[in-house]
């Protein structure tokens, strides 16, 4: 190998990462142009921020499930932590930080920090254990977060934040207002989220995850997935790198949660339940474990699909079609016999073509 080929060598991982950035930027620019021309309906426009949030959720969950190889069933729990802490932070800063984009950015950082703290609290004890304990504990965590927020009342007045488990106990002054009202969730939230913010969050997520994976720490995380015993034998500490991947994943989910929460005037905790965790997991599995691009595409397409199916004659059957598409894709991408069957069918179809050609040639 000469020095020349070494310096000229462009690595496949770098190319893949650049394609992902390019894809996101092109789609964002195209969408902005279409919005300018009025070619995108209001319903679809209202879904752009959630789409961005789910893309970030899927990419970050892929870090835990696909790249680290640990099953997490409570990713929405971190989103929930991020959403409500972000809403509270944005409300607190209403007067102190008049610039909305800056307030949104701070709220997303706060959401990320809360998500990350949740990740440490869950990950530190559980990731030391061997076996699928993480799945069970994250499942419980998601439900606990939901239930706690459903009984929590948080209010703000000139004396600061008030916490209570009953609205009457909040003891707010006359000018105070309740931000979080138990089962009713957060209400009266100033909508700060924008498509551009979502786009930037996706870019940041790609930057963090892709650069991490293509570095020393990322290789250590991948080595734990491929062969834990061998990884330990070369001096990689299992708990440290498992925790690193899990916490980064939780931080990104928290930031996505903050963006999501600040996209609506009211948000309830039950929005971030087990179903949401499973939905994000479905995006990751359908996009391909470990494939960042797959996660982006699967999350974006599957979030929009139910809306896109809403028009015309198929409207009545849209959820049915959605379910069938999901099941089919899942079966084809994950079932070895079915995948083999599809491969075989493709080969046969090609074979038939060839046969006809040769027969034609012989005649």
């Amino acid at each position, binding site marked *: *190998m000469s020095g020349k080929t070494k310096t000229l060598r462009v690595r496949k991982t770098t190319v893949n990462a650049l394609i992902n950035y390019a894809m996101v930027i092109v789609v964002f620019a195209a969408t902005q142009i279409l919005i300018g021309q009025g070619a995108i309906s209001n319903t679809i426009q209202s879904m752009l921020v959630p789409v961005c949030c789910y893309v970030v959720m899927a990419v970050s969950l892929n870090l835990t499930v696909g790249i680290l190889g640990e099953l997490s069933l409570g990713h929405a729990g971190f989103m929930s932590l991020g959403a409500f802490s972000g809403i509270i932070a944005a409300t607190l800063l209403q007067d102190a930080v008049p610039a909305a984009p800056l307030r949104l950015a701070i709220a997303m950082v706060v959401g990320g920090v809360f998500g990350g703290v949740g990740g440490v609290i869950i990950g530190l004890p559980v990731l030391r254990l061997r076996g699928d304990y993480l799945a069970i504990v994250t499942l419980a965590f998601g439900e606990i977060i939901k239930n706690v927020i459903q009984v929590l009342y948080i209010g703000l007045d000139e004396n600061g934040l008030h916490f209570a488990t009953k609205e009457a106990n909040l003891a707010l002054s006359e000018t105070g207002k309740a931000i979080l009202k138990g089962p009713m969730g957060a209400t009266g939230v100033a909508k700060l989220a924008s498509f551009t913010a979502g786009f930037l969050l996706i870019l940041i997520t790609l930057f963090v995850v892709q650069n991490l994976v*293509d*570095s020393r720490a990322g290789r250590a995380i991948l080595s734990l997935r491929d062969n834990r*015993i061998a990884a330990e034998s*070369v*001096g990689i500490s299992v708990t440290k790198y498992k925790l690193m991947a899990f916490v980064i994943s939780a931080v990104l989910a928290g930031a996505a949660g903050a963006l999501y929460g600040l996209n609506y005037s009211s948000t309830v905790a039950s929005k971030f339940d087990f179903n949401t965790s499973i939905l994000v997991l479905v995006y990751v599995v359908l996009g391909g474990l470990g494939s960042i691009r797959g996660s982006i595409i699967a999350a974006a397409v599957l979030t929009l699909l139910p809306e896109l199916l809403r028009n015309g004659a198929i409207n009545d059957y849209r959820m049915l079609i959605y379910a069938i598409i999901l099941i089919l894709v899942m079966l084809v991408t994950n079932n070895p016999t079915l995948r083999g069957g599809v491969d075989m069918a493709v080969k046969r179809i090609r074979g038939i073509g060839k046969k006809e050609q040769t027969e034609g040639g012989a005649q």
Partner: protein
Amino acid sequence: MSKQYPKPKLVPVPSTNIIPERDIDKSPILECRHLGIDFGGLTAVSDFNMAIGRTEIAGLIGPNGAGKTTDFNLLPKVYQPPRGTIMLDGRDTHSMTTAQVSRAGIARTFQNIRLFSRLSVEDNVKIGLHNQAAYPMWSGIFRLPSYWKKERMAHNLALELLSIFDMQDLADHQAGSLPYGAQRRLEIVRALATGPSLLLLDEPAAGMNPSETAELMDNIVKIRDTFQIAIMLIEHDMNLVMGICEGICVLNFGKIIAKGTAEEIQANPAVIEAYLGKKEG
């Protein structure tokens, strides 16, 4: 009558271990004393005493199921030894984890190959270099100067190590797609990448043809000479063991039945009965 205190059985320490004469002015790199482990009712290893010189190539042989691999799992603490002591470079490894023992200087290969099979050959070696070319996580995320410096260093070191086995051109291949012999060699390269002072090879020649084995023997000696490290290997290929091993240890049913040079081992009646006798006589 005076009070009766329990009377323990006294055992000699340090044990009567042997190492090559040229290493005698330095303490042994590894010394095991009374090492033992049971699996249920089965005593897989018992009273294992062994010392390895700093630049020794040591052999560990014995019939199938003798406890050789179990021994190789005790030394890097894959199993925490319930009995006995392991001294690595004069340090007791009792409280260390596998990863800590690796950083302290023991590297190993596996009888059943354990590569990071979905990753590239180069990445496998770079993972071996984890603690040799270290930089913090955020430096990797934000591509700080230490990332570029250490990554370039890791890349060059990886190719250099691969060139020991003339494998540098395979750097971009997927590890799992390599032929069997190349996978075994890659495991050795990955182990060497950790910068060990003791390299444990579990059946490095398994599945190799005679010419590959001959090349491997040359390379094991070359590795010892270049890196000035100790190597302990388990092998069923007697040509390899008798050819390059200096101190040889014979295990049978978890117990050491003989220790010595190749000539001494080949002449030992207990060994002939337990092991070599079965082969050809």
